[in-house]
């Protein structure tokens, strides 16, 4: 899921300073799961805004804010409260915020920073394992992604900063290449070490990403 966190209150205060009436929008998907934009967080934000002497005209938690048409449909069910507001405050990832900003006529203020596509280690602990590069090498690397979990995204083995099998940027983090090496060894195969991996084709990651299921066109 997309891991996101609430923006600092000072930044929100600044972004909302010109508005008096606000409508709040959360997301029932990722932002709910990582506790940044679910029912509870929308409610907490509302309480804080009331303390700031703002008027909250209403709130909703959209099923999947990243679904542009559904987000628009959900918002229409709150037509009057939305109409009354000067601004829509969205607690969803950047994708969700843009579903709203692309369909609503009102000004939109995003309340979250989106960080990464994350796995849940345990409650409240998220780790980035995939960076959506569009050119997956996992089948050769024993299911451990060096593009993401190596701080430099190296494709041909560890850098000279590996110390006792740990990463140069954080001694707490195990070197991705050490993990790949050990898992491949335990599987008794060479995997990615059998070849020199050529430079990555980053054109798969050209922005903005587009994909059409029908014809597979990017």
């Amino acid at each position, binding site marked *: 899921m997309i891991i996101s966190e609430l923006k600092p209150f000072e930044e929100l205060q600044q972004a909302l300073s010109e508005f008096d009436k606000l409508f709040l929008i959360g997301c029932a998907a990722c932002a709910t799961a990582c506790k940044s934009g679910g029912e509870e967080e929308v409610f907490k934000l509302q309480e804080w805004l009331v303390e700031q002497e703002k008027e909250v005209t209403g709130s909703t938690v959209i099923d999947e804010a990243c679904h542009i048409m559904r987000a628009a449909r959900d918002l229409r069910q709150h037509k009057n409260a939305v109409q009354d507001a000067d601004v829509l405050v969205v607690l969803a990832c950047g994708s969700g915020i843009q579903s709203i900003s692309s369909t609503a006529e009102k000004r939109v203020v995003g309340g979250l920073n989106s960080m990464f596509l994350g796995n849940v280690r345990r409650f409240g602990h998220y780790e980035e394992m995939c960076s959506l590069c569009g050119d997956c090498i996992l089948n050769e690397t024993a299911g451990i992604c060096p593009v993401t979990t190596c701080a*430099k995204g190296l494709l041909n083995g560890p850098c*000279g*900063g*590996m*110390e006792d099998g740990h990463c140069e940027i954080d001694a707490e983090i195990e070197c991705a290449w050490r993990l790949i*090496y050990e898992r491949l060894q335990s599987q008794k195969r060479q995997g990615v070490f059998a070849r*020199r*991996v050529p430079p990555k084709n980053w054109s798969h990651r050209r922005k903005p990403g587009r994909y059409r299921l029908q014809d597979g066109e990017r």
Partner: protein
Amino acid sequence: MSRLSEQLTSGQFVVTAEIAPPKGTNLIPALADVEKFEGITAVNVTDNQGANMRLSSLALAAQLQQAGTETILQLTCRDRNRMALQSDLLGAAAFGIENLLLLSGDHSKFGDHPDARPVFDLDSVQLLDMTAGLMAGVNMVGKPLNGVPNFFPGAAVNPAAEPFELMFQKVSKKVDSGARFFQTQSIFDREALERFMTAMEPLKVPVIAGVLLIRSAKMARFLNDNIPGVQVPETLVKRFESALDPMAEGIEVARETVAWARELCQGVHLMTLGHEDKIPVILA
């Protein structure tokens, strides 16, 4: 053919040193420092070393080269994508630079621009492959070059890295990708160096052992905490702590390491960090 490549090929023991470009445009001190490198085979010119922004290594190397000092141009993948790397390499060739040390580069996190976006479009193996391509007259997309560079490409290694086999598979890849010499991370452990040199034997690629002049226990601890891939053993740190004259102790340690290198390796790379005047006594 560069002097470095000639001497390594003919089995002469080489000595390299290094110089960092200034944090500004004043090249006078760097160009003056070169006089201290008398008798040295070639001087490495570092590339935003430790991820700290400085004048470009290519610019200083070009000036040194034109002033008659043979250089080893360091080039990292941290700050350039594949296009910039290729064009800098062609630029280096145009200035008569032949020796290269091709590196991944320390992560931007360590330097003075920690907010910078690190590039790492290529890794060091791919950079070596690309350089071999340029030397064969084609760029990375197979287009022919108008004028072909002649390089003597080198690579870096940390011989004491663990797991050893994991580190060494990358060394083998670097050799397959055209690395003609290695310069090592600072050496502190003779046994680790011996093990590495034994593994290197069948590859027949010369190794220039890194020798760092440590001046104090404080410096040793700083290196351990802040410089990727440098681990001064605790016994050595203690030796500096109990030394009456830590600089003299540092010189003694460096001399011991040079002696190991004379026995086991094909050269030494001296990292004296501003104390280049100590080079003659370290080598004596």
